[in-house]
């Protein structure tokens, strides 16, 4: 059965968008400074400002849709992840290909009592953006248990 991410993930995305916007503003300010001191092109800070505003507005506007479309499912045979608003992705990973499951949490996830789950195959890794620590541990246990069964059967 497909699962949705916890609603608090929206706060993480919101904070992330704000931080990203602040970084963009710092870059814009640096470019404005460079324009004032060394007479760089005048349109450069202007373009940076427009891009910064666009970046934040788009990121913020997409949060409800991003939340609505993010789904994951873990069955006995596979892990499937579906996400994306404008560009939708559906990824299927058979349990037997999973090498490792890692739980990690940066400051934003920790503040919101969430953990990201990273599922690694021999080629790449795929992330579930954030789940509660209890669910994260359950997911890790379940995936590794299923993976072990799959290895034993093969």
């Amino acid at each position, binding site marked *: 059965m497909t699962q949705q991410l916890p609603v608090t993930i929206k706060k993480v995305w919101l904070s992330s968008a704000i931080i990203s916007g602040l970084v963009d503003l710092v870059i814009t300010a640096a470019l404005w400074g460079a324009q004032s001191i060394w007479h760089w092109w005048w349109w450069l800070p202007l373009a940076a400002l427009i891009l910064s505003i666009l970046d934040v507005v788009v990121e913020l506007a997409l949060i409800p849709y991003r939340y609505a479309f993010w789904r994951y499912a873990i069955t006995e045979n596979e892990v499937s992840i579906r996400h994306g*608003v404008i*560009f*939708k*992705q*559906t*990824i*299927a990973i058979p349990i037997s290909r999973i090498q490792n499951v890692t739980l990690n949490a940066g400051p934003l996830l920790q503040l919101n009592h969430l953990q990201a789950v990273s599922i690694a195959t*021999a080629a*790449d890794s*795929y992330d579930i953006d954030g789940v509660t620590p209890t669910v994260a541990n359950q997911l890790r246990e379940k995936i590794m248990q299923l993976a072990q069964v799959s290895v034993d059967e093969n």
Partner: protein
Amino acid sequence: MKTKHLSAWALLQFLYESVQMAFFLAVGVFWLTGLLHLRDRYWQAVLVGMGALFVVAVVDAGLRYWCFTYQITATGLTIHEGIIFREVHHLPYRQIQAVQRQQRWFMRPLHLEQVTIATAERVDDEDGIKLPLVTQTVGDYLAQQHAIAVTMKDRPDEAVEAAAVDTKVEPVAATSATSPAIEVAWHDLNLYALSSIGIIPIVIALIWLVGEGSRWLNGHTWDMVSGLVAHFEPWEWGLLLVSVVILGLVASYLNVIQKYYHFTLAVTPANLTVTHGFFDRNQANIRRTKIQAVKFKQTVLRQWLHLMTVQVLSASQVGASDDDDQLLLLPVVPQNQALAVLQPVIDWLPTKLPPLTNLTGRAKFALIRNNVIAWFGVLAVLSGGLAWWRPVFLKWVLMSWPLWLVLACLQGWYAGHQMGAATLNADLLVLQTGTWFRRQVWLVPRAKVQAVGVHQSIWMARTNLAHLNVSLRSGNGEELVEVRYLPAVTAQQIQAWYLAH
């Protein structure tokens, strides 16, 4: 076997490497002291410092040689190396993933070679585990022990009792299990060399050389040459151009021929081994169980000539060269014989390819449109840059826009006609891509696919198209094969096929 040093000739190789490093350092010191205006004032100290660098280089080479020892035992190879930081590598034969042997032209009369050993551990090219210069018998012995260990690992029920108890390194006879080797036909190699696009970098290099001529030639000679060229008639320009192209073609042809000279693919129950090269003889091998996918490559020119190149993706590093994790299995094979030649080598390959699901007209249009947009962007940035910095060239670039845009359309059209995918049976996936006028056909066993993704934008949803992404293991990383703009139903069917079994 007792601990041994490398061949004495390795001392010369170490000396060359150390002196080369010292030379670059000395040039750096010379330049830096000049920059800081110290060279004239303290020239004796600079000279002594530079001399000391070379003395240190010689001592370093001697010590490195002295400290590098290896020992072949019943279970594996042990290497001791390092002067200040001592390192000991113990490589059990069972853990060795590949043994690559390289014999440079000057090593051949001395029967010496370089042996590179790849293990499952991630190693980069520079720090790969190497025996820099040992006798060929050592390489033969290691290759044989590796083959035995692999056979035991893959088929433990077959007792290979002769394995590895005798650690005396002697010339090794070819094993009876080896099937007849496959050799690349001279005629095919010739066609392959003639159709090589290696001419492009060579011509660019020649043009660069002409451009740099003004720096290297003295003023009078350069004036004379440029004066002569300035009075060229059109036919003389044509002759010059044709000469450059012919020179480029010959250089490219000879390079390919020497690189793949006597290309041989030897097959044992456990390994595939390729050997090639005229000046430098290279040997690389791969465990058959480590093969992740087989890739057939063709440039548009070679499509006309019905020639293919075959590579295999490996789960381990193949060696320090040969694309590291993609072993070149056959540089050239006639298109209609490719599967027939390779099927006995890789038993899961089919004898015939299935018909692929190709792109719809709408999908082909999308690829052409994307290419035109991408090229348009590049040309716009280039033209903008030129208008700012070099307005004199702007006219020429603007005039060439239609040519590039036609090329972009052709590129999209080509890609649209090549892309496709199909499942052959429950266990084999066939993917075909076409980028930069190069067709690639991938044959992938289902068991080796790591993940399958279906990507679809909201605009593609309206036209029922989707990108299919197939994730494969390549060495220690990923090779992502993307078939773009497939019918969404086909992409979803392939994903379902992947999960269903």
